[in-house]
């Protein structure tokens, strides 16, 4: 299944010859300890507003990356499984065709990009996302004193009324490509790491080019343990979850 996906993609407009990388991520759930370091790293990297108790109780917290918990068994004999869920960067993303103003679309590197400036806030994309990983800015963002001085200059701060979501840290991808071309090198596997991947202490996440057969993400995604979230919907996600088949 996952092999077919990559095959199909490389056969079409995104071929090896054009040398356009196809970004993907793989997450080994058996390694994930649910520590949420990735969540914190994501917040810090991407200028995601902090939310207080009121916002949380109103269902208005924004976490581009969240840890879903699955419980097995009865208390006290209970087992918890964690699954970090972010935008799955679907190849056939349900959020894209419904946007009336092309604020979200697929770019040639397979990223499901969100153009904040174009968004008028119909929120249709968020309704149509089966993973519920799109977030809306209900108000203009505010940061507590001093924290407003630590914003990442590479990432735009989104105004109220627009949709946002995980970008696979597109600013890091751009920087990686820039640095590689300045040095005259190809981008090596592992050169580009989104904040979550970089901060994972268990090294449960890998990120890279799915067209590169030797990249870690290709190998992980093609392992027998790999699966995609809600793949029965046919959204062709770019995030692969590895789990022992039990």
């Amino acid at each position, binding site marked *: 299944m996952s092999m077919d996906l990559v095959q199909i993609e490389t056969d079409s407009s995104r071929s090896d010859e054009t040398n356009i990388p196809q970004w993907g991520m793989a997450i080994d759930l058996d390694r994930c300890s649910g520590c949420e370091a990735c969540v914190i790293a994501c917040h810090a990297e991407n200028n995601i507003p902090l939310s207080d108790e009121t916002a949380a109780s*109103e*269902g*208005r*917290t924004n976490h581009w990356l*969240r840890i*879903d*918990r699955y419980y097995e068994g009865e208390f006290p004999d209970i087992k918890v499984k964690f699954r970090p*869920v972010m935008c799955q960067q679907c190849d056939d993303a*349900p959020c894209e*065709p*419904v*946007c*009336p*103003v*092309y604020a979200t679309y697929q770019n040639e590197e397979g990223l499901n990009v969100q153009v904040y400036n*174009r*968004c*008028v*806030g*119909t*929120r*249709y994309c*968020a*309704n*149509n*996302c*089966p*993973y*519920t990983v799109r*977030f*809306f*800015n*209900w*108000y*203009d963002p505010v940061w507590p004193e001093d924290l407003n001085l630590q914003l990442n200059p590479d990432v735009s701060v989104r*105004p*109220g*009324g*627009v*949709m946002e979501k995980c970008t696979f840290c597109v600013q890091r991808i751009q920087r990686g490509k820039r640095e590689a071309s300045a040095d005259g090198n190809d981008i090596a596997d592992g050169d580009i790491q989104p904040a979550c991947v970089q901060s994972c202490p268990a090294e449960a996440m890998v990120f890279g080019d799915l067209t590169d057969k030797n990249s870690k993400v290709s190998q992980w995604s093609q392992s027998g343990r790999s699966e995609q*979230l*809600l793949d029965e*919907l046919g*959204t062709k996600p770019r995030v692969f979850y590895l789990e022992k088949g039990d």
Partner: protein
Amino acid sequence: MEAAVEFSGEQTTENNVRRDLLRPLTGASGQYLTAVVLCSAVVIWALVAWGYQIHYGIGVAGINRPVFWGFYIINFVFWIGISHAGTLISAILRLTDAGWRKPVTRAAEAITVFCLMIGGMFPLIHLGRVWLFYWLIPYPNDRLLWPNFRSPLVWDMTAIFTYMTGSVLFLYLPLIPDLAMMAKRSQGVRGFLYRKLSLGWTGSDRQWHAMERAMKLMAGMILAVAVSVHSVVAFDFSMSVAPMWHSTIFAPYFVAGAIFSGIAALVLVMAALRHFLHLQHYLRPLHFDNLGKLLLLMSLIWMYFTFAEHLTVWYGNNPAEINVFNVREHGVFASALWCMVTCNFIIPFILLGVRKLRTITTICLASVSVLVGMWLERFLIVVPTLSHPPLASGWGAYTPTWVEWSITAGTFAAMALLYLLFVKAFPIIAIWEYEDDH
């Protein structure tokens, strides 16, 4: 046609007809002025609430993640649904040449125009950045970007544009002879406006021919457009992959529901006109009885669709869908669901199905019940699905705030206000059409 003539019993002379139908246009009772002031106050309050929402951000409304659409979209579907009262019903009655339609059509067509004006506001009210709404319109712009014609929201926009244009003209054309007649009877600004609006109508046989032909053609077109408009509203939901939205039955289900609620609204408006404008002689028990039978028919059709939809989902037992089904059937939304079935099916079925019970009062009661039920139906379509997305970690709840309640109340007041003003400006029964029959 036969029935109407038979039923009318004593013949009213033309002078009496004009006197009766033109009387509401002059003077204003204390009751009328009070109603106008009250409705205006509520409308202004709603505008204040909307201004507050624009200023502070859409977060002042209760919508959240995952319930990204709430009261605004529910009201949108509700009002666009009611708008089918008019044009659709009057178009069907015109095409089938049902004589009893004549005192009813204009009241119905006016409902359509006002409901569309109100319903059409909601997609704007609900936008995160409403000041950029025009980005949905295709025009050459400095963003070098055309809209995405695959988006059901762009379909919505074109559908409402066509329906609005069509229904305004559908209301306006048969108004022209009455405007010409009133222009002769009025002076001052009013006379000037009537004269300008009547476009120099002289009542020649060419004009009558053109009118008849145009209205026949328009009736057919508006029928197709009305069906398509509510189908497009349904497509907003059914084009998505959300559980219990992605359903092929939605377009006809929505159209049936729209006609259903439209008839109910028409009955209530007619009862109000009959009572307050003393039109007992024109809006007769026959009209209510006929509309009551139509309402009963639509109630049965609605129940059939609802049953088919629920049975399919229940039997399919798809995990994501059955979650939504369960919260609707015996979860937090169960009371709303069974209330909806009672309001839309049980009450109208008893009140309208038993012939002895079918009087103007009970038809009105059934209509109120249907309007409540159909509002709940839209609520049950929008909220349970959104609050229960496929991944359970995303589940949420929805509580509307005072902003949403105020704006919702404001739209009902706006409807009443527009109607009050319309009744003062134009005869609510087409005088020439009525006279033509008697």
